């Protein structure tokens, strides 16, 4: 297996390098055969890496401890299902995963790019293969997962127990795939610049792949939050950890990109800006890979300590310099065909949206790198942590949500204050009424919460109002039943209404974050079996502790009887596992989740007598809404991505391009 793996990685390297050279030379010299072979090299590289992936999986399944990576991340006791997680639990395996994911998306995106894209497709393929070459070189030379041990040990070390959680099956691969998925829209942007074609051909593909990367990253982040909430056991879901931030920043830049690319799609504007944005997103993605795999900052994600930092730092530097160099070189041909007509228009609102998103990304970056700067310049160690990010990013996020409510009400091109007032007056009135009611009923006295409630309500009201009015109008016009009329409304403008679904999901997320941030309660208590403690409206009684011993761990479960205002709500079980060989305690909280609040009990520690234990009791209001938002984000993205009926468009090629098109050959 080891030989097969190394051999296929070598083959993939040769194919990627050839694909890169063939695409660039072929596109530059209009040599059809070269361009076609470059594209096929792309597909074959995916096949080769696929075989390498299968080889590593086989090695794991057959307990081939002669391979160092398998010996370090698996053992005989590990359930076979965790092979999926062990595969990317370390540097080498995760890089193989990243290379395979990148290669698959490179192939898929090139297959999906229409042949009419001409040299754009060839140059894009070249850029994709160049980046793939980098990853495969690192994989082969510096982090080969198929390196063999001199003598195979009888048993392996095993998998880090923190990783044995359902969330780990999806969270890391989604984030890794999301980070490398930005490569596709980036390569399309670079391909556009390289080909010198100044049309908007790249826009449709870049929007689709930008949305794919955005949804993958967003879902990956949310799953990471869910994993942290259910297993990391401190009662929170987001800690502004450097690695979280590193994945959050490209997501922000992508959010800006998928909005601003719509302006180019609809109005032919922001051409320079969109290329610059995707460059920023890609650089931030490369920074994310660097922070994650190179680890210059302490983080809870330091699972695979590595010496690859300088490699990814170099890659980050080269990618940023090269992309912006090319951007400035081609600046002159990227001008907009249309001018902005009014400061009061949706185009202008998108610019403010971009400003705020990049503002949050900048503040986050600033907080991540400032400790490094401080240490390098003054030698003083400081920490920039959660309070900083909450206080700085919180207000900008609220402003962004406000814009989410107002922006869609503004028409394209131009608006007058009178039309804006007419569009806003009803939603604003409803919003103010609801906010006032919330303030009175729930006795809300915190300004940030009131502002948050108001902006979130504004978004929900303006989206729902547009849906209701649109549905009624369609029902009257066509006589269709209301559900059908609503479906027809959604289908009539998928990018817009898919976006609205995502906006509503963001509102749920924001409500969850606001509720749990400002109204959470925490208590640390020691209880003997039979004791009880109260937290918020809940009473928790420590009924019993059950112990079971395994080869690698001792598991304890605390049986807890829960009641609210004297009314019993049943029992919960909080889990605690001690792994002597890792010198580690892993906890799994007992969580009783409702839309109003979560009762969250962490079984942190057992005293030597086996009967007294430390618990942390939390009441986290509205966290439920954060997890519910996830499926809606995905639903909205799918609606926005769902292909519309092909418009009947006749494409006319300029004579010179016709040659290039013939050179491209039939697909």
């Amino acid at each position, binding site marked *: 297996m080891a030989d097969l793996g190394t051999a296929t990685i070598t083959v993939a390297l040769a194919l990627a390098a050839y694909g890169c050279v063939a695409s660039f030379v072929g596109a530059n010299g209009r040599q059809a055969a070269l361009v076609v072979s470059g594209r096929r090299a792309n597909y074959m590289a995916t096949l080769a890496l696929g075989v390498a992936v299968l080889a590593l999986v086989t090695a794991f399944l057959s307990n081939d401890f002669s391979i160092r990576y398998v010996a370090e991340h698996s053992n005989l006791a590990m359930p076979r299902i965790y092979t999926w997680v062990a595969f990317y639990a370390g540097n080498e395996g995760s890089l193989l995963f990243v290379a395979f994911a990148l290669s698959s998306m490179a192939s898929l995106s090139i297959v999906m790019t229409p042949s009419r894209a001409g040299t754009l497709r060839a140059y894009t393929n070249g850029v994709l293969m160049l980046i793939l070459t980098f990853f495969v070189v690192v994989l082969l030379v510096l982090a080969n997962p198929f390196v063999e041990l001199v003598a195979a040990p009888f048993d392996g070390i095993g998998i*880090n127990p923190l990783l044995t959680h359902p969330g780990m099956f999806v969270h890391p691969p989604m984030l890794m795939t999301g980070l490398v998925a930005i490569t596709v829209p980036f390569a399309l942007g670079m391909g556009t610049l390289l080909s*010198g*074609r*100044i*049309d*908007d051909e790249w826009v449709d593909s870049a929007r689709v792949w930008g949305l794919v990367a955005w949804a993958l990253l967003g879902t990956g982040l949310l799953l990471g939050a869910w994993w942290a909430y259910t297993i990391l*056991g*401190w009662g*929170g879901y987001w*800690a502004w*950890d450097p690695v979280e931030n590193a994945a959050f920043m490209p997501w922000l830049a992508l959010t800006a990109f998928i909005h601003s690319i719509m302006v180019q799609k609809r109005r*032919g504007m922001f051409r320079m800006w969109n290329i610059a944005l995707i460059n920023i997103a890609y650089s931030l993605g490369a920074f994310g890979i660097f922070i994650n795999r190179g680890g210059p900052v*302490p*983080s*809870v994600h*330091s699972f695979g*300590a590595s010496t690859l930092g300088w490699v990814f730092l170099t890659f980050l530097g080269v990618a940023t310099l090269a992309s912006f160099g090319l951007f400035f*070189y*081609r600046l*002159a*041909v990227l*001008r907009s*065909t*249309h*001018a*902005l*007509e*009014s*400061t009061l228009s949706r185009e202008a609102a998108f610019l*403010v949206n971009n*400003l705020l998103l990049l*503002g949050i990304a*900048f*503040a986050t970056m*600033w907080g991540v790198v*400032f*400790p490094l700067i*401080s240490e390098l310049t003054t030698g*003083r*160690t*400081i*920490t920039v*942590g*959660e*309070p*900083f990010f909450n*206080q*700085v990013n919180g207000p*900008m996020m609220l402003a962004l949500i406000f814009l989410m409510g107002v922006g869609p009400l503004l028409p394209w*091109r131009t608006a007058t204050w009178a039309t804006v007032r007419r569009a806003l007056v009803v939603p604003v009135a409803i919003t103010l009424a609801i906010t006032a009611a919330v303030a009175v009923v729930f006795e809300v006295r915190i300004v940030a919460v009131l502002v948050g409630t108001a902006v979130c309500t504004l978004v929900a009201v303006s989206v729902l109002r547009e849906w209701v009015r649109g549905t009624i109008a369609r029902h009257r016009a066509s006589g269709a039943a209301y559900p059908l009329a609503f479906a027809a409304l959604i289908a009539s403008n998928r990018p817009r209404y898919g976006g609205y679904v995502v906006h509503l999901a963001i509102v749920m997320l924001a409500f969850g974050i606001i509720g749990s941030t400002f109204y959470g309660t*925490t*208590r*640390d*208590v*020691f209880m003997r079996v039979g004791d009880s403690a109260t937290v918020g409206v809940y009473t928790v009684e420590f009924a019993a502790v059950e112990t079971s011993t395994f080869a690698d761990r001792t598991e304890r479960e605390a049986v807890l009887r829960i009641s609210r205002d004297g009314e019993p709500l049943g029992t919960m079980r909080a889990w605690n596992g001690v792994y002597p060989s890792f010198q580690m*305690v892993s906890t799994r909280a007992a969580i009783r989740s409702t839309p109003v609040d979560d009762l969250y009990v962490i079984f*942190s520690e057992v*005293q030597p007598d086996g009967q*007294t234990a430390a618990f942390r009791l939390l009441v986290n209001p509205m966290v439920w809404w954060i997890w519910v938002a996830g499926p809606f984000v995905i639903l909205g993205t799918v609606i926005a991505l769902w292909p519309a009926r092909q418009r009947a468009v006749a494409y006319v090629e*300029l004579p010179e391009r016709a040659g290039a098109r013939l050179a491209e050959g039939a697909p």
Partner: protein
Amino acid sequence: MHPQRIQSRWWLPGIVAVALVALLTSPAHAQVQEPLPPELEVQAQALYESVMCPQCAGQTISQSNSQIAKAMRAAVRDGLLAGESPKQVLDSLVASFGEGVLASPPTSGLSLLVWLGPPLALVLGGAAVVLAIRGLRRGAGQDGVGGAVPAGSKATGDLAPYLDMVDQEIGGGGRGPSPGG
């Protein structure tokens, strides 16, 4: 997961070790702790969230379950029970562990830059957006494209790339500086 690496980067291991021993052997930790009075519990939880665990890679002592985090939580409790204000508790932690133990930097000295950076960037970015909007709007008057033809017009939208391409083939004379400029 890799305390050695982080220690060498962050903290003087000696200080940590001494503090750890001192805290672990303190009588308050040896026994099961009595619950704090509710108002002190709120203060204690807030403090846990604003103090970093020196050895746990970016976690606060609220998040971490390591020995040192437990010991530091015990120190916070003891301080509060002894009648110290949250500020005094923080000050004594900073005295033993250094400024890096604070989860967010103070708003003074060099650390003030941390807090000023993002608002400054937002103001500069805002100025750039205003300039961009002005530039784009002035373009509307001069270019003639946005002004003369209805901007949403299909014909302009579809032909514009080709017109630009023609311009470029001619030599890019009429449209902005030449590439590289």
